[in-house]
């Protein structure tokens, strides 16, 4: 028990040092723009289909599940606003981040872990290429910028899913549906939710890179790095969300 706690704190300490190096390396040239754009494509663009399917289902299911309760209270007309608020403030950011933790963080963990095990990271080091800058900074930065974009996309697709859900039981004009959503939304609903997605992205990238970069030698450690990246990133998302909600509640 004590050993496990010691190990956990040691991991947190190492991860903090690893993350703090990111802020130092990101401002110092050279800048690996080409690799950063490649990672944006791999992390962002290639995740669009998965996020689109999940976003649509989230909107659809949320609408279908909420409708009976609202009908009981005669508040069916609130449905578009409620769905949009739930999606934008909480459900889309958290679910999208969890999907990214599963897809991106594990992918990064496995990729870097395998590079470590097969001496590819050492090969970069001996060629005087900074592997942290080339592999880690580009991936963390791409995650930090791409996850918020994916969340916006999930919001939009989720709202479309909500529209489909509403139209299963009735016939609502799309323009009217959108007007109701826009009327029920405020900037304060969008801004805190957007800010937290940057933190989600940063932690998804950072945890994947940390686990992969510190994989011990042996192929078994590649699987462990990928698995551990998903678990830790998912847990971090819930912790960040809890902190973000508390802060939002305090100030807004």
């Amino acid at each position, binding site marked *: 028990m004590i050993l496990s706690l010691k190990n956990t704190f040691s991991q947190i300490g190492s991860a903090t040092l690893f993350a703090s190096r990111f802020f130092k390396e990101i401002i110092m040239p050279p800048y690996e723009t080409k690799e950063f754009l490649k990672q944006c494509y791999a992390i962002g663009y290639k995740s669009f289909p998965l996020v689109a399917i999940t976003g649509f289902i989230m909107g659809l299911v949320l609408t279908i599940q909420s409708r009976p309760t609202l009908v009981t209270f005669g508040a069916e007309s609130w449905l578009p606003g409620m769905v949009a608020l739930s999606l934008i403030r909480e459900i889309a950011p958290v679910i999208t981040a969890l999907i990214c933790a599963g897809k991106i963080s594990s992918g990064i963990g496995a990729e870097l872990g395998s590079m470590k095990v*097969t*001496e590819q990271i050492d*090969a970069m*080091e001996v060629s*005087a290429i900074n592997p942290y800058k080339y592999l880690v900074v580009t991936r963390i930065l791409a995650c930090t910028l791409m996850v918020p974009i994916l969340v916006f996309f999930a919001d939009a697709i989720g709202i479309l899913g909500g529209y489909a859900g509403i139209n299963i039981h009735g016939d609502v004009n799309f323009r009217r549906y959108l007007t109701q959503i826009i009327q029920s939304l405020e900037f304060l609903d969008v801004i805190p939710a957007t800010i937290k997605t940057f933190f989600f992205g940063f932690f998804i990238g950072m945890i994947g890179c940390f686990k992969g970069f510190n994989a011990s030698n042996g192929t078994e450690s590649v699987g462990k790095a990928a698995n551990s990246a998903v678990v830790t990133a998912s847990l971090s998302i819930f912790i960040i969300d809890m902190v973000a909600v508390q802060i939002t509640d305090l100030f807004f």
Partner: protein
Amino acid sequence: MIKEKKNSDPKSKDKNQTPIIEIKNLHKTFGGDNEVLKGINLTVNKGEDLVILGRSGSGKSVTIKCIVGLIEPDQGEIKVFDENVLNLSKEELNKIRVKIGFLFQSAALYDSMSVRENLALTLTAHKRDLSPNEVENEVMEALENVGLSDAIDKMPSELSGGMRKRIGLARTLILKPEIILYDEPTTGLDTITSREISELILDIKHKQKTSSIIITHDMACAKMTADRIMVLKDGVIHTEGTYEELEKDEDEWVRSFFESVKL
């Protein structure tokens, strides 16, 4: 009967030879009690190919990884181009690393990149002002040196073991290093491919005037490439000499390497 170790003493070197790598009293212990290097002393002179022979776990790879700063020794001194690499900052060490090529046992090609990208990354990381045409020309030149210009668009997964080694060598050569460290360059290859790699090592030495340390237990490779051979046993230099000298050595340990060739 184990012969008394004859560690090469840098002080007794030929005055006409310029040492390019000097290692003194190198110690390294892993995990608290696994002492892999127990006071290695060696010198590599300019233009010389030094082969380090030894069984698995004798500390051969650890020694060359210490030279490029991949492993930090516990004690000792490593001078490359007359600079103690253990006292250098990361930036200063990187300047030395550019002059040292390292061929990994597994070739360590970047899996997610094509052969072209593998070579171009190493080149452009140090010469950022090169135009795409210049990069392409240098990549082609390096590939032609290893006879694999046709493989430029292939992915590492499409290459055979021998091809991977050659591409790894091309990636090393693209920065025109003065020293090349080979970590078991012929391991896992058939006899013919091993011979081709050994010939390539010789060819590179003659064309590019490099100095090398070649870690191997392949005696055919050692015979072809070595100017001098050091035999490592249990973390110390057991004996050293030319191939012909060691072939006549009566020490059982040394003979065991040469007998494996006769079998």
